[in-house]
């Protein structure tokens, strides 16, 4: 289905759900559950917590369905709810205690030059290339290893596509702090992918 037709179909389902058609809401759940579960899982890193967050997100969406107005997309809205719940859950989990590995940073010489040059430019065609399971696993491990504050910002911005301002509102952190963490997370993930390409 083309993007515009899909969006129109989703608006129609949302309108039916808002009018009380539960089967229309269930269809919306079926379409979005994987992504909602995915964002929760990547942020909280626990299947049980992610499943609970997914339930809470869709229940909350249903209870506030009439607040969704005009052309606002149900999918975007429910992903934001799930991201918000995940960030809150992560804050709670962090209070409970978590050990984090330090971030990987590039090494520089005393003169500020890169100490290790990239041996291979793997960026060509990266957008189009299908991921093999090994690379997928290496990336997922690298994301999981990020300290939680960095992982959360990276997932919200680069995977979920939230704006800096939306993330600031969600996390209570300043936009400059978010940008700084995002940059360092990208640098660490770039290093992990670089290592995969150059060592495998």
């Amino acid at each position: 289905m083309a993007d515009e037709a899909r969006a129109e179909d989703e608006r129609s389902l949302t309108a039916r759900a808002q009018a009380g058609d539960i089967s229309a809401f269930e269809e919306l759940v079926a379409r979005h559950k994987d992504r909602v579960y995915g964002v929760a899982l990547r942020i909280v890193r626990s299947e049980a917590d992610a499943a609970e967050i997914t339930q809470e997100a869709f229940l909350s969406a249903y209870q506030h369905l009439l607040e969704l107005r005009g052309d606002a997309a149900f999918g975007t809205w429910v992903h934001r709810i799930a991201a918000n719940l995940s960030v809150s859950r992560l804050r709670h989990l962090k209070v409970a205690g978590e050990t984090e590995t330090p971030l990987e940073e590039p090494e520089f010489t005393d003169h500020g030059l890169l100490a290790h040059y990239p041996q291979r430019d793997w960026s060509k065609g990266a957008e189009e290339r299908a991921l093999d399971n090994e690379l997928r696993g290496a990336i997922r491990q690298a994301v999981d290893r990020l300290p939680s504050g960095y992982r959360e910002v990276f997932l919200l911005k680069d995977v979920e596509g939230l704006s800096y301002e939306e993330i600031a509102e969600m996390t209570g952190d300043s936009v400059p702090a978010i940008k700084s963490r995002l940059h360092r997370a990208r640098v660490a993930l770039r290093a992990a992918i670089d290592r995969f390409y150059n060592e495998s």
Partner: protein
Amino acid sequence: MFTCRDSIDLLQRFLDGEMPEEERHRLKEHLDACPPCVDFLRTYRATPGLCRKAMVDQMPRELSKQLTAFLRQRLRK
């Protein structure tokens, strides 16, 4: 003249288009003379896209069934 460290620190602002012209010019000057930093920039820029692809998840069938049962019970109350 910028160093590699300066350039890498500024990549995000460069890609976000938030860099003053003067700074942008100095960064480009460094990139013109530093192929390793160009490779770094290209791979840094490609990183989010690759990660997005790797982050696609499917809800396990059992959890999906639980979600359906949970919502059916709560929605039909």
